[in-house]
Every structure is written in structure tokens, then in C-alpha cells.
């Protein structure tokens, strides 16, 4: 995934689309933001300068689906193999019925991309009819996270199978990329040198968050501002 921060307006459409697409539940009291569940969190970054030099940008943060050698930080630590990285497509997924809720994966993730279900999942009555049948809701006491809309990949592969197409060459868009009105989010196969994301990831404006930790995030950001690059990786 590549997110162009210069194009992002901070409208949160990606976050809302993600919430709706993946049946992300609501807390009884959403005033406690450190327990809110959001797979696509929007941060506001500021350059720390006074007007007229003041600048800010928005930074949407999905799961980075880290590509660190052997293991992602979170998959490495799970005692029950409830979270795995599929080496065929690079997606880090979470098996909810197997998760014991020890939260070690959350502890291991420096991006706060993993959220815990502190309560039973619930939605306002009027929203229950809008729940997606494609994605299972998560029970109380387990961890959840962005899956790059893995169910859409499965649907695309199923369609390709029926069409007699190559299953390994299917493309799809996650809900966030589809919903973005400014087309700030691009999605595709980074390993395919001809793909747009592969090209954008090599752009001069490209950077990744906390690259120094060698987590090898699969989410790239684009920004023309050096202070944004600097905020993305400490001590650059």
C-alpha cells in the first residue's frame, strides 16, 4: 500500500469505510480513545513551527503488515500461532477463534495497529442491518487488526477461479483505497515491478514509518516535505 500524504485531506473516509467494511464495533463509551477500535487511524502531524511557518499533514495508519525477515514483530511472539503472515501474499492475518487474548502481539507492535476487544462487540441498532456478511465480527477478549481486506482478495480469487483466470494475478482494492475521494491510497503487489505501488514505493517522496527498526513495513508514504519524512523515522 502507498499513501500519498500530499493528497490526503484528513477526511477520514478511509477510516469510516474500513469500519463499515470490516464490522468494526463500537465501545459502550467511546470517550476512552485508548480502547477505541479503529483499524485505520488518522494521525495529525505538525512541523512544530509557529505561524507563518506552521504546517501540518494527516497520516492514515493501517496495519503495516511488516515484512521483517522470518517474522513480523507480532507473528513472532504469539504463543498460539493465532497471527500469521501468509508468505504467498504478505498479508498478516489474525485467527480470532484461536486468539487467547494475551495481547503480546499488541505489545510487540510499535504502530499501535492492533486493537483489543475490551467489550462484547456492539453496534447502534440502526447499523446492525448494515453489517457485512463477508467478515466475522470479533468476540470479547481477542485482538483484531487491519487485514488489507483479505476477504476481498478471497472473493477476487474465487471469481478468477470461476472465470478460469490465473489466481495469483488477481488484483483488488481494500475498502480504504476504494473510498478515498482524492485517490491518495494506492494498493497492489509490491513484488510486481510493473505495478503502480512498486513504482510509487521507489518515488523520491517515499518513506516508511520507523524504517530503522527493520520491521520492513509494506505501507509506504509519499510526502514532499522533509519534516514529514523526519517525523516518520526517528533521528533521520
Amino acid at each position: 500500500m502507498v499513501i500519498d500524504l500530499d493528497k490526503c485531506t484528513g477526511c477520514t473516509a478511509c477510516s469510516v469505510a474500513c469500519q463499515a467494511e470490516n464490522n468494526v464495533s463500537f465501545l459502550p463509551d467511546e470517550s476512552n480513545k485508548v480502547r477505541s477500535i479503529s483499524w485505520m487511524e488518522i494521525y495529525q502531524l505538525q512541523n512544530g513551527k509557529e505561524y507563518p511557518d506552521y504546517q501540518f499533514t494527516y497520516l492514515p495508519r493501517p496495519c503495516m503488515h511488516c515484512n521483517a525477515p522470518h517474522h513480523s514483530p507480532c507473528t513472532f511472539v504469539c504463543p498460539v500461532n493465532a497471527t500469521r503472515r501468509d508468505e504467498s501474499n504478505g498479508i498478516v492475518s489474525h485467527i480470532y477463534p484461536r486468539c487467547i487474548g494475551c495481547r503480546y502481539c499488541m505489545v510487540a507492535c510499535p504502530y499501535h495497529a492492533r486493537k483489543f476487544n475490551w467489550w462484547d462487540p456492539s453496534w447502534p441498532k440502526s447499523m446492525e442491518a448494515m453489517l457485512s456478511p463477508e467478515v466475522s465480527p470479533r468476540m470479547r477478549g481477542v485482538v483484531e487488526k487491519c487485514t488489507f481486506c483479505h476477504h476481498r482478495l478471497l472473493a477476487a480469487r474465487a471469481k478468477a477461479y470461476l472465470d478460469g483466470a490465473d489466481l495469483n494475478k488477481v488484483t483488488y482494492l481494500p475498502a480504504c483505497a476504494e473510498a478515498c475521494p482524492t485517490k491518495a491510497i494506492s494498493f497492489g503487489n509490491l513484488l510486481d515491478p510493473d505495478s503502480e505501488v512498486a513504482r510509487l514505493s521507489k518515488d523520491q517522496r517515499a518513506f516508511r514509518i520507523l524504517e530503522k527498526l527493520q520491521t520492513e513495513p509494506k505501507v509506504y508514504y509519499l510526502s514532499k516535505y522533509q519534516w514529514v519524512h523526519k517525523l516518520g523515522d526517528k533521528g533521520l
Partner: protein
Amino acid sequence: MDKALIPDGVKRCPLPVFSLWVLLLAAIIGWGVWAGGMVLYKAVNVTGLNDYFGFGFYITIDLAIIALGAGAFFTGFLYYGLSRFFPAFAELSKVINLSVVIGFLCYTGAIVILLLELGQPMRAWFPYWHPNVHSMLTEVIFCITCYAMVLTIEYAPIILENRKINAVRGARVFGHTLHEVMAIFALTGTFLSFFHQGSLGGVAGVLFARPFAFRTGFFIWPWTFFLFVLSAIASGPAFTALICRGLEKISGRQLVDRSVYDLFGKIVATLLSFYIVLKIIDTLYWALVLAPSFGFKLTDFYLGPVYGFWLLVGEIIICGIVPAVVLLTPKGRANNGLLFSMFILDCIGITINRYVMTVQALATPVMPFDRWEIYIPTIYEWAPGFALIAYIMLVISLSYRYLPLFPREKELNPIR
């Protein structure tokens, strides 16, 4: 009324006084059981944990109590394993029963607290069924449960030595047989305990995306693996000695020879000195090489009064270097006040270490645009913690009253 159960030739406080003490402890345990029950029933949302602090009070107290309970395996190792080659360690026979009881209590208590920590406690058996061999937590879970079983086997013959139970021939023979093979269990416990003390350190040390906790290491083990083992064996004997001393003070009777404390002093001094030197090297390497390679300065890891530098100073200097230096001197060990104060500092230092590796490691922002968070445990976390302490005190009280924990007690306190 319970005279028939009290070991022969020793004096205990009147039953009503003891009953009041037991009632007080039972009340605290009841409070903790209620709080723990609420956590299991309502889920961990009643705690102060959140998405920043996946680990908190429960893990801190688990790590601390397991480190302090290391006196069991290490005393057993010195006594059963090394006393043949180093006769000085034979002195530990006078306190080996107590160390086993402490170990048993620390480990069983830690397992219960660990259960509360889980979001899905009904799935607590999953790690045995779907183990991830790469996870340090898997190693911890396996070793802790196995070692708790070993400790139960080690505790059993002590229980069977109760005057009434011992009168039953079958129980006496079984207890005696267990005693005969105890060295095997003690050494098995040493092996298991070594690994899980280490893997508890590994739990933090392998977090390669958390610069506060991450350490490089040897083969698959981060340096924290070895530091946790060393710190546990440097503080476990001190904790055992403190509990023994506490029992002496409360009962008003001498339970072990002074030479036992002196030996503990020497053991703790040696191990703590070794540990603290390695800990200082580890801290310097972390602060000057490792963290900067991730773009962090030492000052990035400490903030304000809650997560300030006082934790580092407290852990390494006040509760590390000071007790090590004092205990290395014969004068320091000869003075009871100094000896036990240094033991207390040692135990506090190890608790601070477990706290910072758990809570501060998570409070420190990693993303540059992230913020510091403060974690405040709720009553649902404190209460099981206090209950754990009360549980340890209760079973030690019962064991002291009804079991021959201290082989020298009768000789040291002749009834006139």
C-alpha cells in the same frame, strides 16, 4: 485444640490468635478472589489496561514474584546439586523446606494471576495445543506449569511430615520415598526454572520493534534472557532469607542458625555483583549503541516523575550497586540491620527491573509523533495482587504451624 497437629517439641501461638491471623488473611484473599472473579466475569475491561498497555500490573507482579520465588530452585540446586562438591552449601538444608514452600506459592500464585490476564481465559489450554515454538511466551507457559508440578511434588513430602499424617504408615513410606528421589526433582526444577526465568527475560528482549526492551543476544536468546536468570538467582535467596527472618520476628523464635543468613549474604553478594556488572554493561551498550541505531537517545525513554530517571538510578545504583558492595564486605553481612536492609533493596531492585521492562517499555512512544501514556492499575488489579501476598503468607503460616519446616527449630528453642 490443634496440638496433635503441631510438630513435636516446638511451641506455637494459641489457636485463637492464629485463627484471627488466618481470618485476616482469608479476608484479603476473599477480596482478591472477588476482584479476580469480576475480571473473569466482566472481562479485562475492568482493569486499567488499554491498547497502549497490553501488559500491566498482572505481568509485572508475575515477573516479580517468579523472580523472587527463584530461591526455591536455586537453593535446591545448591543443596542437592553442589553441596557434595562444596560442603558449605550443606548449611542450606536448614532452610530448604521453606524455600520449596515459597517457590510453590510464588509459582502457583503467578499461574492464577496469569489466567486473569487473558482476554479469553477459557482458552488458556490453547498454548499447549497450538504452541508457537518461536514465542518466548510459549516457553514460559510450558516451563511454569511443569515447574509448578515439580514444586507440588517437592512440597508433598513436607506435608506428609505432619505429625498426624506421618502416623499413617502408607503416607510415611510414600513421603520417605519422595525424599529419597528429591534430588532428581530439584535438578529437574533447576533445569525448568533456568529456562523460564530466562524466557521471561526473552519475552521483553525479543521485541525488536520496541527499542526500550529489545536487546541483541546470543543465538536465539537476547541478553535479557541471561540477565533475568542472573537477577532471579541473585534476589530469590534474599527473598527466602527475608521471609525466614520475618517468621522469626513474628514467632519470636530463632528458626535457623545465623550462619544460614551469612551464607545467603555471600551467595547474594556474589551473584548480585556479577549481575549488576553485566547489567551496567548491558545498559551502556543499550544507551550508547543499540538505541541510537534505532534513532533513540537515552533521554527519549524517561519522562517526568512517573517514568523518570529515578527508576534507572533506583534499580542499578541504589538497589543494585549499593547492596552488592555492602554484602561483599564481611562487616555488612555481620550486621543484621545492614544484611536484611540490603536484601530488601535487592528485592526492590529486581521488582523495579520487572516493572520497567513491562510497563515503561510500553509507555515509551516509539513512533515519533506518538505520545507518552500513563497506566494506572484499578482495584481489580491491586486486589488479586494483595490476595497473592496474603495467599503466600497464609500457606507459609499454616506450613510453619503444622509442618516441620525448620529442622533446627527444636534445638535452637528448647522448651523448658
